[in-house]
Structures are given as structure tokens and as C-alpha cells.
């Protein structure tokens, strides 16, 4: 199975080099290990995350593409759907079986036809439209809902800090 995974990951990497969506750079962290990718994601415009560039790690399981990878922001960023440890919680990274309440639609979930590109695009849209209904970081959820200016101020501050300005 891990041979399929390697082949598939290599193919996805090639495709991403050839034509990568704007604001996204991704690739294996080193050439010996295709199962760990580094990604750079640009903050979408007209959001608090604008002008920010965020570093994240994609970790693929051996049975990829049957199981979804995990995505972790390093360092963690303040966002309702990102756990304090940086792990991203969105529906595309979950298998359909993981959600007993059928809260998320099956089409939005992980399936072998999804890809790294689709995941990263979903993350971009997650940055611009947080889903506070199923939050991962409760403090961020509350702040986002009740005190938007403060939320934006904190995000901005961390972006400035991360850029070393």
C-alpha cells in the first residue's frame, strides 16, 4: 500500500509544481521522505490573516489516499478551527466514518479522490470563513464571535511578530 501512496504523492507533487494555485507552496520536506510535507500558505486578502505567510506540516499516513493526512500549523495560529497545538480541524481531513452525528456532509469529507491541492484550498477558505459551529479552539471561537476587533488585533500582532518586523 505504501508504494501506491508514494506514487500518488509523487504525482501530486509534480502536479503542484506544474500549476500551483495562487498563495500556496507545498512539497516534501526532504527528498528521502515523501510522507512529510512542508507548506506555505498565504493569508487570504480582506481577512485578518492578510499579508501573513503561514508555515504548516502535512503528515501522510502509510495508507494514503485511503486515509487523510493531518495538517499542523507551525507555529500554531489563532483561529477557531485550529487547535492550540496547531492541528487543523476541517471536514475534508476527516473520514466519513469518524462523524457519528452525520454533522458534516459526506461530500465534504475525505475520500481517495481528494488531494493535497484541495486540502490546501479548503484551508485557505477556512482562514477567511471560520466555522465556529464546530470549533477546535474554544477561546478563539468566543473571541471571534464576541470581540472581533480584539481577535483581529491579536492575529495581526502575531503575523507581525512572525515576520520579524
Amino acid at each position, binding site marked *: 500500500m505504501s508504494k501506491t501512496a508514494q506514487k500518488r504523492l509523487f504525482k501530486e507533487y509534480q502536479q503542484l509544481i506544474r500549476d500551483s494555485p495562487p498563495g500556496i507552496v507545498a512539497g516534501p520536506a526532504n527528498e528521502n521522505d515523501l510522507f512529510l510535507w512542508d507548506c506555505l500558505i498565504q493569508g487570504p486578502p480582506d481577512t485578518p490573516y492578510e499579508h501573513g505567510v503561514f508555515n504548516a506540516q502535512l503528515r501522510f499516513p502509510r495508507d494514503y*489516499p*485511503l486515509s487523510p493526512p493531518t495538517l499542523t500549523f507551525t507555529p500554531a495560529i489563532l483561529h477557531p478551527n485550529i487547535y492550540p497545538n496547531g492541528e487543523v480541524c476541517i471536514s475534508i481531513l476527516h473520514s466519513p*466514518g469518524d462523524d457519528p452525528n452525520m454533522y458534516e456532509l459526506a461530500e465534504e469529507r475525505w*475520500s481517495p*479522490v481528494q488531494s493535497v491541492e484541495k486540502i490546501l484550498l479548503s484551508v485557505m477558505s477556512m482562514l477567511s470563513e471560520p466555522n465556529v459551529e464546530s470549533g477546535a479552539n474554544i477561546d478563539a471561537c468566543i473571541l471571534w464571535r464576541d470581540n472581533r476587533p480584539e481577535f483581529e488585533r491579536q492575529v495581526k500582532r502575531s503575523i507581525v511578530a512572525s515576520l520579524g518586523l
Partner: protein
Amino acid sequence: MNSDEEYSLVYDDDDDDNDSLDFYEALPATEFAINISKSRSHLSQSSEFDIEEDPLSNDDMAESMLDVHVSASAKRALTEGSVPDLKYECLTTEDIFHRMLKRVDHLQPIFSIPHEDILLLMQLYDWNEERLLEDWTEKMDILLEESGIHVSHNSNGIEGNDKNGNIRGVKFQESFNCIICCEEKSTETFSLECGHEYCIDCYRHYIKDKLNKGNVITCMDCSLALKNDDIDKIMGHQSSNKLMSSSIKSFIQKHNNNYKWCPYTDCKCIIHLKDTSSFAEYLRVHCSPFVSCKSSHRFCFSCGFEIHSPADCDITTTWIKKAKKESENLNWVLSHTKECPKCSVNIEKNGGCNHMACSSCKYEFCWICSGDWKPHGSNFYQCTMYNNEDSKSKTSVEDTSKTLKRYTFYYRMFNEHEASAKLDWQLGQTVENKVKHLQEKIGVSWIEGQFLTESLRALNEGRTALKWSFAIAFYSDPSHNLTKIFVDNQMLLSNSVEDLSELLQIKNPEKIMNKKTDFYNKAGYVTNRTLALIQCGRDLLRKGICKPTN
């Protein structure tokens, strides 16, 4: 009624040794029938004495085979509670699956869609017919789309394809580029009506992964569902069975009033109770509906535990809950604390020296010897000689932690008998060998050798009854006369069980054959004592002398 056949079989065996059956089949069937009707009208008070009389009335020995049959089952009925026989059957998973298909057949005229589709809907609704029918009448089209039976029209998979042009099934492609494994090869492919086509290898991996989860499997790109037929076609063998087995589980879960899994490890039997109406009657007279599966595992249909008479299900569950809760507490308390020698408060030593001061009565004592601290003075190690007798006599005087002690006592007894039951089980394995030995060495026929197996069965039943009787005893009002009678009964059974157990230890085949009558007498006595104890326990329950309290 598989199990009934089994019982009659067992009893048939000892008919051949009629000469020493006096303890066993003493009462003719009719008398038992009277007993049963008596106890049904709540006059069962006398029943325990009826059993005592059994050995005396043994002039009815010339019973026909038929009579023995009836009396055997009547006897069983008495053990199980003087209530109507339970009508149940033991099923296998295949039987259940056939039943499920029958339900589908039954629903087919209402839905008027193919059987497979209904099966799919039922799977999705965990065999909750009512909810499915409700949703069906309310929003049939949405339901069909959501469940992946019809192609969804609003979500666009790979649009532009003519939907009718896509045929469901396995195809062969000369050159196919699978977007999952990213390989271009000539291979078989599979697609549903949605047209999402992938190579068969990828589909196989995908299905293998999903089969364990037990949900309906859908196309990898949309919510269109794969039917059992498709799965078997892709995998090339009967793989959908695996998916169905999880569906069988939910079917039984849904119908758990009538269907129950056998709780024994690795037993795949399912008991189906045909008539639940007698169930209430069972609970009312504090009997438990004991059933037996094909592998002769006997258990209580109501609470799922082993045979637990004389205790009823209430007592059993409270007892077990308490045992679970208390045993942890108890273990901790016993291993980490000591009682204050003066006021019996349990004290935990959380460090420091051995000079203890009880926080409740301020008594100062030594942790090592539990004696007064004063003589110790600064001389720490004068008390290394642990005086066992002394501390024992001290604790027995205390009565503050009486309830805990009382519980500990009964719990210990319960455990002891459980441990013995396990040893008896090991004994059972050697009995099998002994029977073989008898056959080979002395040429005893198989049927004649069965008295050993029969004795073992009596021993097991006696042990279990004895074990659970301690649960009853714990919850009973100790001052009541009937409780005292119960305790006497316990003792009698306990003695007789030990006697029989000892007898079963004999290894020499000749000796065993010589003692055959002894075996019969002792086993019969144990059986009768067991019945008496069960009856007595039931009376305690019925009169409210024994009540489950927390």
C-alpha cells in the same frame, strides 16, 4: 426448541440406570404439575418441603419414558421458577440474515423499489422500520438521493457525461489513467451510474478499508451507494457478508426485546424469545428467564449474566454494581490504610514517621504495632515484633465499620465460591477423561458412565446457586426468621456440595464404579438442596425480606 431436546437427551441417559434413580425422578409428572399451579397461585410456601419428601415417595418407579420426559421438564420448570416455559429458539447469524431479508420482502410492496435498495435503506436506518417509513412518506425523493440510491441531480460530479451513458459495473479498459493510484495501465475498472471510474485495485483497497467500519459504502467521489452485489463483484468473492454482519448487530440491537446474543466469549448464537408476554410474569415472581444456546451456554435473558438463581435480576445487577464499585474501594482501603486502634477510622499513612495521631479521636499510636505510642518514647524499634493475636481481637470488638465488614464477608464468600466453581470446571475436564477410562478399562458403556457427567452438572448448579445465595443473604434482613432458615439451607447445600466435590476427586476407575450409588445419592441430594435453596431465596424476595439497596 433445541435446548429442550438437549435437556430431554440428558435425562434420557439416566433412565437406563433406573435402579438408583430414587432421588432423581421421584415425583411423577402430575404431582409436579400441581406444584406448579400451586406456586402460581402463590401458595408455594410449602414447595421446599415437597422436595424434602421426594425420596420417600419412590414407589412410582415404573414410569414410562414419556412420563420421565415430562417430569424432567417439569423439574426444570421448577428450577427456573414455576412459571410457564419460555418459548425460545437459538439462531445463527445466517438465520438472522434470512429473517432480515424476510422483513425486506415484507416491506417491498410498500416501497416498490428493488430489494437491494430496501436493504440499503434499512442498513442506513439501523433497522428502525418506523423511522424509515416515516421519512419515506415525508420525503421520498430526498431520502432516495441521500441514501445514495438515486443519482443526485444537484451535485455535479464529473458533469457533461450523459448520466444514462454510464453503466454500473466492472469494465475492462485498454488504457486507463486512475487518478487515485496515478497509474496508467490496462485494467479492469469500476464505476456506478455517476461515472466516477477508478481502477479495480484502488476500489478493492478502498472497500477492504471500509468493510470493517460497517457503514454503507459509497462511491469514492459522491454519495452514491455500492450495493452488496457490487461489492461482491469488485472483490470477486462474498465480501458483503462482512458488511452484513455489522448490520446484523444493529438489527439485534434494534430488536433487543426478543433477540439477544449469547454473552459467552466467541459464541455467535442468538437467542430469540418467541413470546415476551410470560416475561413480566417471570419478573413478578422474582424468577429469571434462563435460556440456553446451542453450545449449552446458559444465561439469563433479562440481565445477560450467568445463571444467578436464587437471586433475581434486580439483586444480581445491584450486587454486581456494588461489587465493582466496592471492590476497588475495598482493595485500596485494605492495602493502604489501617484502622485506628481506638475508633476504627481508616487511616492512610501519607508519609512521615510511624508515630501516628488519629485525626478523629486524637489517639496516638504506632503504625507498626498499632499499640499505644507512649511506651515507645524515643525508642522507635522496640515494636518490630508484630503481635498478630492482639490486633485481631481489637478489631473484632469495633462495630463502626460493621456494614463494610458485613459486605466484605459476603463478598469474600461469593468470591470463594466463584473460585471453587472455576476449579470445578477444571475438574469437569478430567471427568471427561474418567468416563473414557471407565469405558476402556472396565468396559462400562457410555451411557452407564454418564452418572459422572450428571454429578458434575449437579455440582455446578449447586455451586452457582450457592454463590448467588450470598448476594441474597447480604440484602436480606438478618433478623427475620426466614433469613435464618435461608442461612441454614445455605449451610446444608454447602456441605452437600463439598461432599460431592470430594467424591468427584476419586481417580481410581474401580473405586468410582463401586461408589456409583454414592454418586447418585450425593448428586441427587445436591440437586434437591439446590432447589430448596432457590425456593427459599425466592420466598425471601417475594415477601420483601430481601430488597436491593445501595
